[in-house]
């Protein structure tokens, strides 16, 4: 553990300077990914915020605001919206639990879908033609007032329910 101690001692002095960001900037992508999960920074003026309307599984409309650049998953997390099981893999494209459904016009305006998102959408429960993954949709001003419906929950096979129901 001598190495660790040595590094810690050294790193302690210059910790801020040599924070992970140095590495992240160099390799390009981690800064972006990290940002999407620390996006609650209040740096953007409130008039820049975009209004989003989520419709939860009970059909209830929840209106929140988010900053341009945030993903819809970020907003669900930042606003602490209680959609059971939503965003299990933290936006790393390993599941499809942040599945959202849009109306057709909105869907068309959401921009291209990557292959990896399509592959994950294939595994989404209650898939529709206008489904997308919330983690892949970044807010822009043009999405002001967007409606995103959280699809019905998976038939829960836990405990006492019959799976065939």
């Amino acid at each position, binding site marked *: 553990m001598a190495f660790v101690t040595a590094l810690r001692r050294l790193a302690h002095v210059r910790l801020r300077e040599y924070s992970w960001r140095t590495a992240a900037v160099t390799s390009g992508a981690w800064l972006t990914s990290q940002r999407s999960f620390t996006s609650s920074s209040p740096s953007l003026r409130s008039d820049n915020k975009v209004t989003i309307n989520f419709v939860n599984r009970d059909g209830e409309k929840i209106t929140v605001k988010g900053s341009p650049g945030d993903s819809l998953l970020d907003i669900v997390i930042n606003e602490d919206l209680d959609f059971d099981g939503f965003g299990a893999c933290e936006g790393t494209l390993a599941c499809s639990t942040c599945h959202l459904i849009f109306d057709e016009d909105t869907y068309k305006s959401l921009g291209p879908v990557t292959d990896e998102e399509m592959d994950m959408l294939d595994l989404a429960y209650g898939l529709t033609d206008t489904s997308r993954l919330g983690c892949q949709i970044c807010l822009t001003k043009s999405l002001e007032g967007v409606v995103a419906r959280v699809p019905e929950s998976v038939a829960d096979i*836990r405990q006492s329910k019959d799976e065939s129901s």
Partner: protein
Amino acid sequence: MASLSHFTTACWKNLQGDRMNKQLFFILRALHKSAASEASGISAAGEEAMPDRLITPVADVGEKTRIMTLKEMPGPSTLSNLVEFIWRDGFSRIHEIQMEHRKKFGKIFKSRFGPQLVVSVADRDLVAEVLRAEGVAPQRANMESWKEYRDMIGSSTGLISAEGEDWLKMRSVLRQLIMRPRDVAVFSDDVNKVVDDLIKRVCILRTQEPDGATVHNVNDLFFKYAMEGVAAILYESRLGCLENEIPQETQDYITALHLMFSSFKTTMYAGAIPKWLRPVIPKPWEEFCLSWDGLFKFSRLHVDKRLAEIEAQLERGEDVKGGLLTHLLINKEMTMEEIYANLTEMLLAGVDTTSFTLSWASYLLARHPRVQQQIFMEVKRTLGPGAVATADDVPRLPLIRGLVKETLRLFPVLPGNGRITQDDLVVGGYFIPKGTQLALCHYSTSFEEENFADASDFRPDRWIRKDSTDRVDNFGSIPFGYGIRSCIGKRVAELEMHLALTRLIQKFQICMCPRTADVKAKTHGLLCPAAPIHLQFIDREI
């Protein structure tokens, strides 16, 4: 990528041994396991013990509402299983047995391996139900022996061997680094340098043959490629696997890795022998430890090397630049022991898995020249002559993506994955108590006609979408798993395979070597070629 930790682990632990030891071992394991099974809730009693409330019909589902018990679940008898696995070496045919049992017993069936009950789920929709019902920290199989070794040497568990909160903590760190496609795309140049060496190696190897074209046992080549590739990303350094002279430390690692797999039959049941019996039957546990010693030593060496470099850079007041390991060392979201353990496990899991898939993909291309030509035309058209593809080009190469998907459908590296249920579940109409070992039968669902038309045909174009709303309900083939405990190296492995296959197809016409006939698959922990694959690599005319 979790190479060893699928459900067969549980089976191996119970039964696998060289022929001499089989029966003795079986009995020993039975003795040992009975206590452990009770602790984890897998008990014979579990089959009958069903809470009364569950017997009551669920009101809204009409007639066929009675939830059945495990006791009513069909499956091979304990005796026939014993014969199958012990006298007929069923472990190497575990993928075929999966298919046979699916036909015979249906979508869900139970098998007994000594005291260990395994419920096999062999249906796309039921697999989907199980995976969708997962909680925050799914458990794959019993990893006691892995943990024991780590406790013994004072190390940490890694993503394969850890469970619960420990696992979740490490997974949360690592997935933010190597799971998003865009985070992995930055490794294109590093991987392409390894692909350069792969191509050079092919050229060197074939000159050693009289026909000037054949590469013997391509898996040996792809093993080195995969190891070099994954190490370039994990350790930020090159190992020299594809050089003529392999450095000693790298060779030592390869030896340790081979020991781990070649002595699979002994090492995998190392943890199964109760501690008090180890003085009498010491070999399995010793080999198990010896392999791990070698694997850990290698990781420590490379992690410490990078740490020393960073330290020197800091002393000189320089900017520290780097990738995955640098991030982990500087950011300190994990302890040093956790870093060692995870890099060890990720390297282990990222070598054979990728190399077997590349071997099968090349084999399938050689067997199907017309498909190969179709893919070559796509690559040529898209990239133009001589251009080197990066991750950014892959979306424009749908047949390359299709090739990898189709290869993994026909030869899923993990023919089955495991889950230990974290809740009481009802699957396929049966009550399955918490703590039951499930086997998700990916191999058999991959070959279901209902899921894939002409399922035994090799057709990479079946994965091509007409447009972005064209869907393939592909729970039938999920070689990397699904969800929070799916393969963390999926995107890295895909990148390595996409870039290597694109370049191989660009450069060579891959043909069957007259000496290679039909190569079948066998299960040896992973689904691997049952015989060496020799292929010819003939230069394409530019």
